[in-house]
C-alpha cells in the first residue's frame, strides 16, 4: 500500500508541476504580455512601465521559479486590479463555490444512484427507459440554457425561487440542480453498469440461495461493491464542477470562484487568472489522488497491478 501511495503521490506532484508550467506560460500566449495588456493608445513608456510593474522584464525562468516558489508558499501574486493578494481574494470566494459544488454533487448522486440501481434491477423496463432518457437528454442540454430556463419558470413565471445572489439556502437550489444535472448521466450509467455486473455474479446468487431478503442482498451485498467506481467518478466530477461553475455562477450572480474567474478574464487580471487555474487544477489533482488511494485501500487488486 505504501509503495503504491508513494508512487501515486510522486505522479501527482509531477502533474502539478507540469500544470504550473502550462498555467504560467499561458500569459505568454499573446507574445509580449505587456503589449497585450496595454490599451491601444499606450505609448512606449507606458508599455515599459507595465513590463516593470508586472515583472515581465526579468528572464522568463527567473519569473517562473519566483512565481512557483511563492505559489507553493501560498502567495499567488498580486491582483493589480483589486490591489490585493490574489490568494486572499481566492480564499474569500472559495467557500461559496465549494458549497455550491457540494450541493450540486449531492443532488446528482441522490438522483443518479437510485435511478441507476432501479434501472439495473429491471433492465429494459420502463424505469430503465426513463433513466436512459434522462441520461441522453441531460448530456445534450447546454448548462447555461437549462439554468436560464429554470430561472424563467421557477423564478419569474411561478416566483417560487429567488433568481440571483446567495442570501438564503433557496438561492442555491437552482444553481445546484443546473450544475449537478450535467454529471448525473455519467454517474447513473456507471451505477447501472456496475450493478448489472455485480448482480450477475456468483456471490449474489449464493446470497439469494441462502434465502437473504432481496433488499439486504441488493444494498448490503450488491451496491457496496458496485458503488466503488462511482465514488471515484464522483470525486473526479466534483473537480470538474468547480471548473464548470463559471457558467452557473455568472448566470445566478453567485459571488464564488467561477464568477471571480470570469471577472478576472474580463479585466485581463493576469495574476488572478493564473492563480485560479492553478488552484482549481491542484485541487482536482488532490481529489483524484484521494479517490485513487481510497480505491486502492478498499480494493487490494488495484495496488498490485
Amino acid at each position, binding site marked *: 500500500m505504501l509503495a503504491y501511495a508513494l508512487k501515486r503521490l510522486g505522479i501527482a506532484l509531477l502533474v502539478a508541476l507540469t*500544470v504550473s508550467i502550462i498555467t504560467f506560460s*499561458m500569459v505568454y500566449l*499573446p507574445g509580449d504580455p505587456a503589449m497585450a495588456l496595454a490599451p491601444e493608445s499606450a505609448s512606449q513608456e507606458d508599455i515599459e512601465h507595465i513590463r516593470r510593474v508586472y515583472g515581465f522584464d526579468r528572464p522568463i525562468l527567473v519569473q517562473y521559479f519566483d512565481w512557483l516558489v511563492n505559489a507553493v508558499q501560498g502567495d499567488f501574486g498580486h491582483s493589480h486590479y483589486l490591489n490585493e493578494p490574489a490568494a486572499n481574494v481566492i480564499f474569500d470566494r472559495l467557500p461559496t463555490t465549494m458549497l455550491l459544488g457540494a450541493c450540486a454533487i449531492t443532488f446528482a448522486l441522490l438522483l443518479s444512484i437510485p435511478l441507476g440501481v432501479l434501472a439495473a434491477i429491471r433492465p429494459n423496463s420502463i424505469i430503465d427507459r426513463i433513466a436512459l432518457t434522462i441520461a*441522453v437528454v441531460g448530456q445534450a442540454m*447546454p448548462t447555461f*440554457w437549462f439554468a436560464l*430556463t429554470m430561472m424563467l419558470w421557477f423564478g419569474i413565471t411561478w416566483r417560487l425561487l429567488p433568481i440571483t445572489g446567495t442570501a438564503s439556502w433557496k438561492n442555491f437550489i437552482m444553481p445546484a440542480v443546473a450544475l449537478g444535472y450535467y454529471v448525473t448521466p455519467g454517474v447513473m450509467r456507471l451505477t447501472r453498469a456496475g450493478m448489472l455486473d455485480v448482480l450477475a455474479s456468483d456471490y449474489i446468487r449464493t446470497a439469494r440461495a441462502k434465502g437473504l431478503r432481496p433488499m439486504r442482498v441488493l444494498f448490503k451485498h450488491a451496491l457496496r461493491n458496485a458503488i466503488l467506481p462511482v465514488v471515484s467518478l464522483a470525486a473526479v466530477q466534483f473537480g470538474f464542477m468547480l471548473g464548470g461553475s463559471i457558467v452557473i455562477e455568472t448566470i445566478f450572480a453567485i459571488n464564488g470562484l467561477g464568477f471571480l474567474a470570469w471577472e478576472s*478574464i474580463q479585466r485581463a487580471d493576469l495574476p488572478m487568472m493564473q492563480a485560479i487555474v492553478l488552484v482549481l*487544477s491542484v485541487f482536482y489533482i488532490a481529489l*483524484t489522488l484521494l479517490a485513487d488511494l481510497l480505491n486502492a485501500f478498499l480494493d487490494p487488486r488495484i495496488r498490485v497491478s
Partner: protein
Amino acid sequence: MANVSITRAGIPTAEEILEPAPGAVLRRRIFGNTGLIIGATVLLIIVLVALFADFISPGDPYDQVLSRKLIPPIWHDGAKVTWDHPLGTDALGRDYLTRLFYGARISLFIGFAAMIISGIIGTTLGVMAGYFGGRVDMVVNFILTTRLSLPVVLVALAVVSLIGSSLTVVIWVLGLLIWDRFAVVMRSATQQIRNLEFVSAAQALGCSTPRIILSEIMPNIANHLIVVATLEMAHAILLEAALSFLGLGVQPPEPSWGLMVAEAKGLIFFDAWLIGIPGAAIFILVLAINLLGDGIRDVTAPENRN
C-alpha cells in the same frame, strides 16, 4: 452465429438456411434502432439547412431593421406577429429564423473542425500508448492526466481572452483541449487488438510499424473512433455555445446560437422566446449527434451497450 449446431457434415441446418445474410442483419439493426434513425434524420436536416442557408433564409442574418425589432414568433398573440418573421426578430430587428439557420453553420463547422483536431491528437496518442505500451504508455498517461487536471472552460476562456477571439482561435483552443476521450478509448481499443494473430502475422511478415498501425490496427478500431468522434463533436458544440454565451467565443454580429442566448439574456423578463429558440436549437443538434453516436455504437458493437 454461435448457436448453429452441425448435425450432418455438409448439409446446412434449418437455422443456417433461415439465418439472414450479414448485410441484411446490419440493415435490420440500423433500421430497428429508433434513436439512430431519428438522430441521423435530424442531423441531416440541420446539415442541409446549414449548407443551403443562403437559399432558404427569409432574410439576411446581419440586416438590422430597428423599426421591426422584437417581433414575437408566430405562435404568440399580438399585433406585431407576422409571417414575414416566423420566429420573430431580435432586439436589433434581425430576422430570428435567418440567424438560426446561419447559426447552424457556425455550430456544425466549429464542432466538426474541433473534433478533427482533437481526433488527430487523441487518436495518435491513444494508438501509440496502446500499441507500444511500456514507457510510451506511461508518457501518454502522464500527458492525459495533466490535460484532465486543467479546467476546460476556464482555460479555454483565459486563452481566448489572451489571444483574442476569432473562429479559428475557438476551433484550435477546443481542439487542443478535448482530445482526452479519444486517447482513452483508442488506447484500450488498440490494447485489445495488438496481441491478436493477424497483427502478429503482419509483424512476422516484416511489415513496418506505421503500416501495421494504419492497415491492421486502424480498420479494426474505426467503429470506436466514429462513436467517440460523434460524442466529441457534440461536446465541442456545447463548449462553443458556452464560450460564446460568456462572450469569449464567436463574436457579434455573427449568429452563434450561444451568443444569441447571451444577447437575449437581459430580455428574459419580457421576451423569453429569444432565449428559448436558440437554446432549443443547440439542444436538438447535440441530442441528434449523441443519438447518432449511441446508435452507431449499438449497431457496430452491441456488446458495449451497458
